[in-house]
Protein backbone atom coordinates (compact mmCIF):
# COMPACT_ATOMS: atom_id res chain seq x y z
CA UNK A 1 0.00 0.00 0.00
CA UNK A 2 1.38 3.40 -0.93
CA UNK A 3 1.32 6.21 1.61
CA UNK A 4 -0.14 8.76 -0.76
CA UNK A 5 -3.84 8.40 -1.54
CA UNK A 6 -4.72 7.74 -5.19
CA UNK A 7 -6.08 10.85 -6.91
CA UNK A 8 -8.09 11.34 -10.06
CA UNK A 9 -9.11 14.56 -11.79
CA UNK A 10 -11.64 15.11 -14.56
CA UNK A 11 -11.75 18.02 -16.98
CA UNK A 12 -15.32 18.48 -18.22
CA UNK A 13 -15.35 20.52 -21.41
CA UNK A 14 -18.72 19.47 -22.84
CA UNK A 15 -22.20 20.59 -21.88
CA UNK A 16 -24.27 17.99 -23.73
CA UNK A 17 -26.48 15.77 -21.60
CA UNK A 18 -24.61 12.61 -22.63
CA UNK A 19 -21.18 14.16 -22.06
CA UNK A 20 -22.15 15.34 -18.57
CA UNK A 21 -22.33 11.86 -17.12
CA UNK A 22 -18.93 10.18 -17.63
CA UNK A 23 -17.12 12.31 -15.04
CA UNK A 24 -20.04 12.09 -12.61
CA UNK A 25 -20.27 8.32 -12.80
CA UNK A 26 -16.52 7.66 -12.72
CA UNK A 27 -15.99 10.30 -10.05
CA UNK A 28 -18.66 8.73 -7.86
CA UNK A 29 -17.13 5.28 -8.36
CA UNK A 30 -13.72 6.70 -7.44
CA UNK A 31 -15.05 8.27 -4.23
CA UNK A 32 -16.75 5.00 -3.34
CA UNK A 33 -13.37 3.31 -3.64
CA UNK A 34 -11.57 5.86 -1.50
CA UNK A 35 -9.91 7.84 -4.31
CA UNK A 36 -9.67 11.67 -4.11
CA UNK A 37 -11.66 13.41 -6.85
CA UNK A 38 -11.30 16.87 -8.41
CA UNK A 39 -13.44 18.05 -11.31
CA UNK A 40 -12.58 21.11 -13.42
CA UNK A 41 -15.38 22.53 -15.55
CA UNK A 42 -14.32 24.49 -18.59
CA UNK A 43 -15.93 25.90 -21.72
CA UNK A 44 -19.29 24.21 -22.43
CA UNK A 45 -18.69 22.04 -19.36
CA UNK A 46 -19.57 25.12 -17.29
CA UNK A 47 -23.21 24.42 -18.17
CA UNK A 48 -23.09 21.52 -15.72
CA UNK A 49 -22.45 23.81 -12.75
CA UNK A 50 -24.48 26.82 -13.92
CA UNK A 51 -27.79 27.17 -12.06
CA UNK A 52 -29.72 28.26 -15.13
CA UNK A 53 -28.38 25.51 -17.37
CA UNK A 54 -27.88 22.37 -15.28
CA UNK A 55 -31.49 21.17 -15.48
CA UNK A 56 -31.75 21.99 -19.18
CA UNK A 57 -28.88 19.99 -20.68
CA UNK A 58 -29.74 18.50 -24.06
CA UNK A 59 -28.66 15.92 -26.58
CA UNK A 60 -29.03 16.68 -30.29
CA UNK A 61 -29.73 13.79 -32.66
CA UNK A 62 -28.24 15.76 -35.58
CA UNK A 63 -24.84 14.43 -36.67
CA UNK A 64 -24.93 11.90 -33.84
CA UNK A 65 -24.14 8.65 -35.64
CA UNK A 66 -24.79 6.59 -32.52
CA UNK A 67 -28.38 7.76 -32.17
CA UNK A 68 -30.33 4.81 -33.57
CA UNK A 69 -34.05 4.13 -33.57
CA UNK A 70 -33.24 0.87 -31.80
CA UNK A 71 -32.46 2.92 -28.65
CA UNK A 72 -36.21 3.25 -28.31
CA UNK A 73 -36.63 -0.49 -28.31
CA UNK A 74 -37.72 -0.62 -31.96
CA UNK A 75 -36.48 -3.60 -34.00
CA UNK A 76 -34.82 -1.30 -36.55
CA UNK A 77 -31.25 -2.56 -36.20
CA UNK A 78 -28.69 -0.11 -37.46
CA UNK A 79 -31.17 2.44 -38.77
CA UNK A 80 -30.29 5.89 -37.49
CA UNK A 81 -32.36 9.04 -37.15
CA UNK A 82 -31.80 10.80 -40.51
CA UNK A 83 -30.13 14.19 -40.07
CA UNK A 84 -32.94 15.78 -42.07
CA UNK A 85 -35.35 14.60 -39.35
CA UNK A 86 -33.00 15.73 -36.63
CA UNK A 87 -33.25 19.34 -37.75
CA UNK A 88 -37.03 19.42 -37.32
CA UNK A 89 -38.14 21.69 -34.48
CA UNK A 90 -38.62 19.69 -31.31
CA UNK A 91 -36.29 16.83 -32.22
CA UNK A 92 -33.56 17.90 -29.79
CA UNK A 93 -36.15 18.35 -27.07
CA UNK A 94 -37.58 14.93 -27.84
CA UNK A 95 -34.16 13.25 -27.83
CA UNK A 96 -33.27 14.97 -24.54
CA UNK A 97 -36.55 13.98 -22.93
CA UNK A 98 -36.02 10.44 -24.11
CA UNK A 99 -32.44 10.24 -22.84
CA UNK A 100 -33.45 11.66 -19.44
CA UNK A 101 -36.15 9.03 -19.20
CA UNK A 102 -33.61 6.29 -19.95
CA UNK A 103 -31.23 7.71 -17.34
CA UNK A 104 -33.99 7.82 -14.74
CA UNK A 105 -34.98 4.23 -15.52
CA UNK A 106 -31.43 3.18 -14.60
CA UNK A 107 -31.94 4.93 -11.24
CA UNK A 108 -29.17 7.38 -12.17
CA UNK A 109 -29.80 10.81 -10.62
CA UNK A 110 -30.11 14.05 -12.63
CA UNK A 111 -26.90 16.10 -12.99
CA UNK A 112 -27.79 18.60 -10.24
CA UNK A 113 -28.37 15.85 -7.67
CA UNK A 114 -25.29 13.94 -8.83
CA UNK A 115 -23.11 17.00 -8.25
CA UNK A 116 -24.55 17.34 -4.74
CA UNK A 117 -23.71 13.69 -4.04
CA UNK A 118 -20.15 14.17 -5.31
CA UNK A 119 -19.73 17.33 -3.24
CA UNK A 120 -21.08 15.65 -0.10
CA UNK A 121 -18.76 12.71 -0.67
CA UNK A 122 -15.78 15.06 -0.73
CA UNK A 123 -15.14 15.79 -4.42
CA UNK A 124 -13.74 19.24 -5.21
CA UNK A 125 -15.55 21.08 -8.02
CA UNK A 126 -14.02 24.08 -9.79
CA UNK A 127 -14.92 26.38 -12.66
CA UNK A 128 -12.25 27.47 -15.15
CA UNK A 129 -11.41 31.15 -14.66
CA UNK A 130 -10.67 31.98 -18.27
CA UNK A 131 -13.91 30.59 -19.68
CA UNK A 132 -15.96 31.92 -16.74
CA UNK A 133 -14.68 35.41 -17.65
CA UNK A 134 -15.16 34.78 -21.36
CA UNK A 135 -18.81 33.80 -20.89
CA UNK A 136 -19.38 36.71 -18.49
CA UNK A 137 -20.41 34.39 -15.66
CA UNK A 138 -20.26 35.34 -11.97
CA UNK A 139 -19.87 33.35 -8.80
CA UNK A 140 -23.59 33.63 -8.05
CA UNK A 141 -24.40 31.94 -11.36
CA UNK A 142 -22.95 28.68 -10.10
CA UNK A 143 -24.45 25.94 -7.97
CA UNK A 144 -23.55 26.17 -4.26
CA UNK A 145 -21.62 22.89 -4.52
CA UNK A 146 -18.90 24.60 -6.59
CA UNK A 147 -15.75 25.17 -4.53
CA UNK A 148 -14.54 28.10 -6.57
CA UNK A 149 -13.24 29.47 -9.85
CA UNK A 150 -9.58 28.77 -10.48
CA UNK A 151 -7.01 29.20 -13.24
CA UNK A 152 -5.57 26.36 -15.29
CA UNK A 153 -2.34 26.80 -13.35
CA UNK A 154 -4.15 26.45 -10.01
CA UNK A 155 -5.74 23.28 -11.32
CA UNK A 156 -2.32 21.89 -12.19
CA UNK A 157 -1.08 22.66 -8.67
CA UNK A 158 -4.11 21.04 -7.08
CA UNK A 159 -3.87 17.86 -9.11
CA UNK A 160 -0.22 17.07 -8.64
CA UNK A 161 0.18 13.32 -8.83
CA UNK A 162 -3.41 12.77 -10.01
CA UNK A 163 -4.54 10.81 -13.02
CA UNK A 164 -6.27 13.29 -15.33
CA UNK A 165 -9.18 12.44 -17.60
CA UNK A 166 -10.30 14.92 -20.26
CA UNK A 167 -13.92 14.72 -21.34
Amino acid sequence: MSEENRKIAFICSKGDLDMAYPALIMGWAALGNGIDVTIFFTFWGLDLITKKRVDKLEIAPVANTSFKFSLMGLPTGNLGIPNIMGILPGMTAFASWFMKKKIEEMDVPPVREYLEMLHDAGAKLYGCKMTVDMFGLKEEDFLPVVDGVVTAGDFMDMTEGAQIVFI
Partner: protein
Amino acid sequence: MTALLESVAFNEEGFLLNPNDWTPELAQEIAAQEGIELTDKHWEIINFCREKGLETGAAPTLRQITKGTGISTKELFALFPKGPAKKVAKIAGLGKPEGCV
Protein backbone atom coordinates in the same frame (compact mmCIF):
# COMPACT_ATOMS: atom_id res chain seq x y z
CA MET B 1 -6.05 -12.40 11.87
CA THR B 2 -8.31 -13.54 14.67
CA ALA B 3 -9.61 -17.10 15.00
CA LEU B 4 -13.05 -15.96 13.89
CA LEU B 5 -11.71 -14.33 10.72
CA GLU B 6 -9.65 -17.42 9.99
CA SER B 7 -12.64 -19.72 10.35
CA VAL B 8 -14.42 -18.28 7.27
CA ALA B 9 -13.38 -17.97 3.61
CA PHE B 10 -12.84 -14.65 1.82
CA ASN B 11 -12.12 -14.06 -1.86
CA GLU B 12 -8.89 -12.41 -2.99
CA GLU B 13 -10.44 -8.94 -2.65
CA GLY B 14 -11.51 -9.61 0.92
CA PHE B 15 -15.24 -10.21 0.38
CA LEU B 16 -16.90 -13.03 2.29
CA LEU B 17 -17.41 -16.01 -0.02
CA ASN B 18 -20.55 -17.36 1.61
CA PRO B 19 -22.95 -14.70 2.96
CA ASN B 20 -24.39 -17.32 5.32
CA ASP B 21 -21.09 -17.37 7.23
CA TRP B 22 -21.85 -13.83 8.34
CA THR B 23 -22.52 -13.04 11.98
CA PRO B 24 -22.62 -9.68 13.79
CA GLU B 25 -19.43 -10.69 15.62
CA LEU B 26 -17.71 -11.35 12.30
CA ALA B 27 -18.87 -7.93 11.03
CA GLN B 28 -17.26 -6.32 14.05
CA GLU B 29 -13.95 -8.03 13.32
CA ILE B 30 -13.99 -7.20 9.60
CA ALA B 31 -14.75 -3.59 10.53
CA ALA B 32 -11.89 -3.54 13.03
CA GLN B 33 -9.59 -4.74 10.28
CA GLU B 34 -10.74 -1.76 8.20
CA GLY B 35 -10.11 0.50 11.16
CA ILE B 36 -13.78 1.13 11.92
CA GLU B 37 -15.45 0.78 15.30
CA LEU B 38 -19.11 0.03 14.74
CA THR B 39 -21.73 2.33 16.28
CA ASP B 40 -25.54 2.16 16.11
CA LYS B 41 -25.45 4.31 12.96
CA HIS B 42 -23.07 1.84 11.32
CA TRP B 43 -25.41 -0.99 12.28
CA GLU B 44 -28.37 0.80 10.77
CA ILE B 45 -26.52 0.78 7.44
CA ILE B 46 -25.19 -2.76 7.80
CA ASN B 47 -28.60 -4.17 8.68
CA PHE B 48 -30.17 -2.36 5.73
CA CYS B 49 -27.49 -3.78 3.41
CA ARG B 50 -27.90 -7.31 4.78
CA GLU B 51 -31.62 -7.16 4.24
CA LYS B 52 -31.36 -5.69 0.73
CA GLY B 53 -28.43 -7.87 -0.23
CA LEU B 54 -30.06 -11.14 0.76
CA GLU B 55 -33.31 -10.09 -0.88
CA THR B 56 -31.80 -9.06 -4.23
CA GLY B 57 -28.60 -11.12 -4.24
CA ALA B 58 -26.46 -8.02 -4.77
CA ALA B 59 -24.88 -5.52 -2.40
CA PRO B 60 -26.83 -2.24 -2.57
CA THR B 61 -25.17 0.78 -4.18
CA LEU B 62 -24.33 3.89 -2.15
CA ARG B 63 -27.33 5.72 -3.54
CA GLN B 64 -29.63 2.84 -2.65
CA ILE B 65 -28.21 3.00 0.88
CA THR B 66 -28.74 6.74 1.29
CA LYS B 67 -32.22 6.56 -0.24
CA GLY B 68 -33.19 3.48 1.74
CA THR B 69 -31.92 4.52 5.16
CA GLY B 70 -32.32 8.30 4.96
CA ILE B 71 -28.67 8.65 5.99
CA SER B 72 -26.98 11.45 4.03
CA THR B 73 -24.10 10.95 1.61
CA LYS B 74 -21.93 13.10 3.86
CA GLU B 75 -22.64 10.95 6.89
CA LEU B 76 -22.18 7.71 4.96
CA PHE B 77 -18.71 8.83 3.85
CA ALA B 78 -17.89 9.93 7.40
CA LEU B 79 -18.99 6.61 8.91
CA PHE B 80 -17.08 4.54 6.38
CA PRO B 81 -14.15 6.76 5.36
CA LYS B 82 -12.07 6.15 2.25
CA GLY B 83 -14.45 4.22 0.09
CA PRO B 84 -17.78 3.25 1.65
CA ALA B 85 -18.88 1.31 -1.45
CA LYS B 86 -16.52 -1.57 -0.81
CA LYS B 87 -16.27 -1.22 2.96
CA VAL B 88 -19.97 -1.48 3.69
CA ALA B 89 -20.34 -4.53 1.45
CA LYS B 90 -17.32 -6.19 3.05
CA ILE B 91 -18.51 -5.61 6.60
CA ALA B 92 -22.04 -6.72 5.71
CA GLY B 93 -20.63 -9.94 4.29
CA LEU B 94 -21.93 -9.25 0.79
CA GLY B 95 -20.14 -9.36 -2.57
CA LYS B 96 -18.59 -6.37 -4.31
CA PRO B 97 -21.31 -3.88 -5.30
CA GLU B 98 -22.05 -4.16 -9.01
CA GLY B 99 -24.09 -1.01 -9.57
CA CYS B 100 -22.44 2.23 -10.65
CA VAL B 101 -24.39 4.71 -8.55
